[in-house]
Structure formats: structure tokens, C-alpha cells
């Protein structure tokens, strides 16, 4: 890591590259110092608000939908292609269509995050709910447990590792959703900040905001991993 940074520093100075094209590392650091608080932070917070809000809604929503679909095989067959379709279509293109319905405020960005995150959570949880070991289900039959009891006591717990894999992927997609939501809708958010800075060739702010978004994404991801490690303590 340090080697790369050193190389970067030397190359920019040695070839005295125009700071507009590739700012040296120290430029970026200075950009961080003076520009972080006034410019980058507020936008970062807006995006983070949408991101976290969207994610927190998408998680229970996704698991709930997966639980409902898992109840019958036909439902699973019908739901899977639909889920894949929503998963694959980048939500950013639906934004211009949603705007006439919802209008321009932040709600739409949260919706973008939800629509981007929920499908992968549903897909993973669905796979988890439909692949429970037969022996565990037999155990429940020996107690004459009802369908709901079986789900609550066995299926959900047995599928937890798969569900969390979905949550991790969801976290990645939600950050993508949040940033693309900013770019598509505009009006605040780190995405627009980067775009504007790039258009005004303020490359050091571009780099600084990119690094801060990446930092935000990494922190959120580690939070999800940390929660998983505590919840699935028995592994």
C-alpha cells in the first residue's frame, strides 16, 4: 500500500503531471483538509442518509417477500424470473420514469436504493429457505409442528448464513444504488458532487470525494459483517 502511494507521489512530481489530470497524493490530502468539512461532508451525509434508510427498509422487506414465496414451489417458480429481472435492470434508468409519480424529493433516492438492494436479498434468502435439510423437517413432523412453527424454529434459522450472504451483497448494491440515484436525480448527494467537480476539473475534490464514498461503503460493509459474526455465533 505504502509502495503504491510513494510511486504515485514521485511520478506526479517527477513528470510534473498537470494537477488537473492526476493530482499528487499530497494534493488530495490537502483537498481533504480544507474541503472535506465544508463541501464533501454535507453531500456525503445526504447520500448516507438515503443509503442507510433504503438498506434498513430493503432488508426486512426482502426477507419477508422471500419467506412468502418460499411457502409454495409454484410461487418460487413464478417469482424467480421476476426477481432476476428487477435485479438486473439498473434502477437508475427507472428514475426518469418514477419522477412524474413521486416528484423530485429525496424519497425517490431511498426508493432507488430499496429497488436496487431488495432483489439480491430476496434471491439469496429464497435459496436459503428452500434448501433446508430433510432430516430437520422430519424432526418437526415428529412433533406435529404447524407450517408457521416449522418456519420460525427451523427454516429461518437454518437459512441464516445464506440470508446474511444476501445482506452483504445487498450492501454493495445499495451503495451503487445510492450514488447512481444521486447522479440520476441530482439535487445534492456525493454523486452529484463528484460529477460537478469533474466538470469543473477540480480533480482533487473528485479524488477526495471518491475516496470518502469508498470509505463509507467499506465501513457499512464491515458493520454488516460484524453483525453477522455476532448473530451466527454458533458457526
Amino acid at each position, binding site marked *: 500500500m505504502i509502495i503504491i502511494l510513494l510511486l504515485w507521489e514521485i511520478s506526479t512530481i517527477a513528470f510534473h503531471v498537470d494537477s488537473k489530470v492526476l493530482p499528487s497524493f499530497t494534493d488530495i490530502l490537502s483537498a481533504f483538509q480544507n474541503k472535506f468539512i465544508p463541501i464533501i461532508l454535507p453531500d456525503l451525509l445526504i447520500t448516507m442518509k438515503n443509503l442507510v434508510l433504503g438498506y434498513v427498509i430493503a432488508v426486512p422487506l426482502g426477507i419477508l417477500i422471500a419467506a412468502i414465496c418460499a411457502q409454495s414451489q409454484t410461487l418460487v417458480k413464478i417469482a424467480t424470473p*421476476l426477481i432476476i429481472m428487477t435485479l438486473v*435492470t439498473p434502477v437508475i434508468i427507472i428514475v426518469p420514469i418514477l419522477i412524474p409519480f413521486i416528484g423530485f424529493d429525496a424519497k425517490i433516492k431511498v426508493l432507488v436504493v430499496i429497488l436496487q438492494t431488495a432483489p439480491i436479498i430476496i434471491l439469496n434468502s429464497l435459496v436459503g429457505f428452500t434448501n433446508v435439510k430433510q432430516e430437520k423437517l422430519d424432526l418437526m413432523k415428529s412433533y406435529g409442528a404447524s407450517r408457521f412453527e416449522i418456519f420460525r424454529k427451523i427454516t429461518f434459522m437454518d437459512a441464516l448464513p445464506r440470508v446474511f450472504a444476501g445482506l452483504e451483497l445487498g450492501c454493495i448494491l445499495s451503495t*451503487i444504488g445510492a450514488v447512481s440515484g444521486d447522479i440520476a436525480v441530482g439535487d445534492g448527494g456525493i454523486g452529484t458532487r463528484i460529477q460537478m467537480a469533474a466538470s469543473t476539473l477540480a480533480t482533487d475534490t473528485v479524488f477526495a470525494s471518491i475516496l470518502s464514498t469508498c470509505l463509507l461503503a467499506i465501513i457499512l460493509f464491515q458493520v454488516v459483517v460484524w453483525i453477522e459474526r455476532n448473530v451466527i455465533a454458533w458457526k
Partner: protein
Amino acid sequence: MKRKISSFLLPAAAVIILFILWEISISIFAIPAWKLSRPTEIAMALFRDYKEILPAVFYTYTNVIIGFVLAMTVGLSLGSFINGNKLAGVTLTPYVNLLCTIPLITIVPLLMLWFGIGRPIIILTIVIQSFPIMNFNCCVAFANVDPLRLELMDSFKVGKLKRLYYCILPDAIPGVFTGIKLSAILSILSSITAEMTGGNQGLGAQINVFVAFLKMPQAMACIFYIALLGLVLYYSISHIEARIMKTRNNEGEQAS
């Protein structure tokens, strides 16, 4: 054979019902055309304006395929390289895993700055966004190969290459395919987003144009094409995986 048909007919029927519901709900709630167009209008747009849409479709599809194949090869080779020697493993893995979690859409404006607008930066975005997830899944798959099978290799003192070919690669197929599916999804995502933010051609850009001119049906038609690409890619990959896996008792499809 019966199971095959029902597993295809059912979802198709569901989609058709969805379209019909969509159609009826528009007429009931009398939603103005510029807000939401009817499926019939979209279908017409598909046929009438194919001259306008097709070049964009062709442009995006080629980008996605090239980017996806590149990302896959880079991910797979990096994965086997990391699995190969320990040093590379220790130094590279943390960074590649971090790359997975970073929304690389942010670098599109930067790339535009450096390379201007056009096909190269879109393909570059696709590769950068999709190869880490592929590499991550490959590394995980290569790492937890069944130790017993490795022990069989040890008992014959087999070289690294043979070990990879006979034991590690075949055993890791489920994990590798999960990686392939995920990078396919991310490739499409990143290509459209790149086109919308930085490109001037391709479906992403075309949608911007259509929306600007309030030609909703055409915009929806483009979305249809993207969804179609996604479905085709996803199901063809699962089909290939199923055929390879038919020889083993695989534990069902999972996107880890």
C-alpha cells in the same frame, strides 16, 4: 419432460398476466400517457422504432459481453494466481475484497476526464466493477475445497498444476459459477449506469434522450431490452452450470 415445460410455462404465464394487469390498471386509473405507457404502446414502439433502438441495443450488448468476459477472465486468473502462491494471497486479497464493496460508478466522471467519452471507458467501468466480485467468489471457492480431496492429492505427491486441474477447479465449480452470475449482473448494471452518466451511445444514453422527448414507450422498450439481456445471461449461465453439475449431487443454486 413434464417438469421442464412447467418450469418454463409458469413464469412466462405470470409475466403475461402482469402485463394484462398493467394494461387494465392504466385504463381504470386513467393514468396520463406521459406518466406511464401501456404495454401495447411499448410493443408498438418496439416494432416501429426499431431503427432507432437497435443500434443502441447492439452497442450496449457488445459492451456488456466484452466487459463481462474480460472481468471473468481477470477474476478467474487472479483467483487461481492468489490461490497459487501464499505471498500474492496475503498482499492482494484485502485490496481486491475492498474493491468489491466500492461503488465504482463514482469513477466514471474521473474516467471521462482522463479518456473522454466513448466505448473504452464504459468497458473499463464494467471490468473494474465486475472482476472483484468474480475474484472474491473464486478465492472463496478455491480456499474451501474439501480437505479430504486435497489429502488424496497429497498422498500421490502431485504438483501444483495437476492439483489445480484435477481437484481444485472441478471442486470449486459451484463457487466459480456464483461469481460468474454476480459479475454478469454487475456488468449490465455498470454498463447502463456508465452510459447514462458518461456515454453518448447505448441504451442508457438512448433512454435519456427518449425521456427528454417524453417518448415514454420507447424508453420502456429500451428497459425491456436490458431486462431481456439480464434474463438471457442469467439463465444461460445457470443452464451451463446445471449441465456441468448434472454429474454431481449439487446442493441447489445459490448466489453467495
